[in-house]
């Protein structure tokens, strides 16, 4: 007997988050993220958690920030537009060394740079995971909470309209009531009056041996932590048919699933094409992408924007192979990112043109 259920992406992600120990969520409705907020409001109370319908994205991320300081696993989310509003806090939360999971159900693929470059002020990065479909999103959600706690950092799960709204048969872990154990650094008020009360501050909280109030020292420590994450977070990538490929196509997210299928069909028709699909977008799996492309004469990038991940693929290859951009913006009239070009024959045609 399979324990799989037919679930919409938003419900599967919400349940996976609560099962992973998430006990606080705050959000503000915005398509295509709205249903994730609705599902959190359904599922969090079943685990004695709290879901807030905040007055705006500014307060949603602020509430999640506060909840995170108590050591309870907290999350927020929005679309790329709402994430723009949250960036000031996300930057500071990263510097405050707080774990937080951010579900970004973006409109199309135009927000790759926003997600992977540290979308706010300051010299920071946080982990970004880009699942291609609902089962992978369930895995990525559990991983996001584990990484957030392990590295004390925000982790973004980057999806889109398709991920949030596609129904798929999927197995989600069971939800248990009560709160997971909280870490030692968490606040609960108890160190007040001890002479050494805890502080959690983006200006320096005494993590990793930092002492006193010295922003220069704190920012240096934050930079060192980001370098450690860059080297220490295992990059995830999915690749296929690369060994004897003449052309390797790179793509990510839901669109990456379509590209993968196009490559499979082209292989069946005898075309020597391979694919590589980064799942961690930061740290970018440069080595795996370079290896996937190493044997090919050429690489191509398909993404539905003006060429953003393109930069990371070119940096990974460092001139060893030409990297052609075969994507482009694709918008539905409503602008929700349900691009008409998400279409296997069209993608296949672009791949074949790049091979000639």
């Amino acid at each position, binding site marked *: 007997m399979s324990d799989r259920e037919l679930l919409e992406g938003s419900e599967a992600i919400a349940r996976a988050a609560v099962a992973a120990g998430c006990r606080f969520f705050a959000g503000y409705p915005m398509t295509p993220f709205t249903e994730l907020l609705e599902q959190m409001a359904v599922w969090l109370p079943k685990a004695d958690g709290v879901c807030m319908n905040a007055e705006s994205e500014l307060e949603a991320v602020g509430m999640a920030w*506060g909840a995170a300081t108590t050591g309870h696993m907290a999350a927020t989310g929005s679309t790329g537009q709402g994430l723009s509003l949250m960036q000031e806090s996300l930057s500071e939360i990263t510097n405050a060394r707080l774990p937080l999971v951010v579900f970004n159900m973006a409109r199309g693929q135009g927000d790759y740079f926003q997600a992977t470059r540290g979308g706010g002020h300051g010299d920071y990065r946080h982990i970004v995971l880009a699942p291609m479909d609902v089962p992978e999103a369930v895995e990525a959600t559990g991983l996001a909470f584990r990484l957030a706690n392990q590295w004390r950092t925000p982790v973004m799960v980057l999806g889109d309209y398709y991920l949030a709204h596609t129904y798929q048969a999927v197995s989600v872990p069971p939800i248990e009531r009560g709160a997971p154990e909280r870490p030692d650094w968490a606040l609960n008020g108890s160190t007040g009056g001890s002479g050494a009360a805890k502080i959690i501050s983006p200006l320096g909280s005494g993590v990793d041996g930092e002492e006193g109030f010295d922003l220069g020292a704190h920012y240096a420590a934050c930079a060192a932590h980001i370098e450690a994450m860059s080297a220490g977070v295992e990059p995830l990538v999915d690749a296929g048919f690369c060994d004897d490929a003449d052309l390797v196509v790179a793509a990510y997210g839901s669109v990456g699933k379509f590209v993968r299928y196009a490559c499979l069909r082209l292989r069946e028709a005898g075309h020597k094409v391979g694919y590589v699909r980064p799942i961690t977008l930061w740290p970018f799996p440069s080595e795996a992408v370079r290896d996937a492309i190493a044997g090919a004469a050429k690489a191509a990038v398909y993404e539905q924007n003006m060429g953003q991940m393109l930069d990371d693929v070119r940096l990974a290859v460092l001139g060893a192979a030409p990297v052609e951009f075969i994507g482009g913006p694709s918008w539905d009239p409503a602008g929700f990112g349900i691009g008409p070009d998400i279409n296997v024959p069209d993608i296949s045609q672009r791949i074949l043109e790049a091979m000639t």
Partner: protein
Amino acid sequence: MEAVEELQLAPRAITVFGIGCYTAFAHNLDVEVVQALHGRAPSVATGIKRMLPDGFVLTVQGDGDMVNEGLQEMLHAAARGESITCLLLNNGVFGETGGQMTATTALGQRTKTSIEGRDPHQHGHPILLSDLAAALEGAAYVARCAVNNAGNVARTKRCITRAFESQMAGAGFSLVEILTMCPTGWFVDTLEGPGYLKDNLAPVHRIGELKAP
């Protein structure tokens, strides 16, 4: 902080600081502290209180922080009846940046961005924050105090104590607005501070308990 000690709240208190000249206190207090962004303390405090319902949560913010940048979330927290206490240190200027006009600057008050005095036609009218908050159903205790003389300091402490007791009783949202002095930002001698407060701020932002159980 005396009130925190007297009510024996130190071992369960978490203080959320906004950004202003008072932010320097954040590292010098012996209570647990979360440093928030400018304007964002009430939402951060909300997240903390929702996860620690038995805790005692307060914010410390200036008028630039609470009434300019963070007015929306302050009012929403009050309307929700969020069980937190907000302390507004209101001196009518941006002190940290050197004396610019805030939303609470009195009409006629000279600042670096209202050089001839605040003009209602050009700069608009001051926002009377406590009056706004007191009108909201979720606000249980709202008081406006001042610290320009010993009597007012003692009254301020009584109001803070009542606000804290109101939070611990689960009555809802509580706010204590405290008119404070910033002679540097007002461009007056330090000794003129108490008089300036009495003559300029206090007639606009009227002292007293606006809402009490």
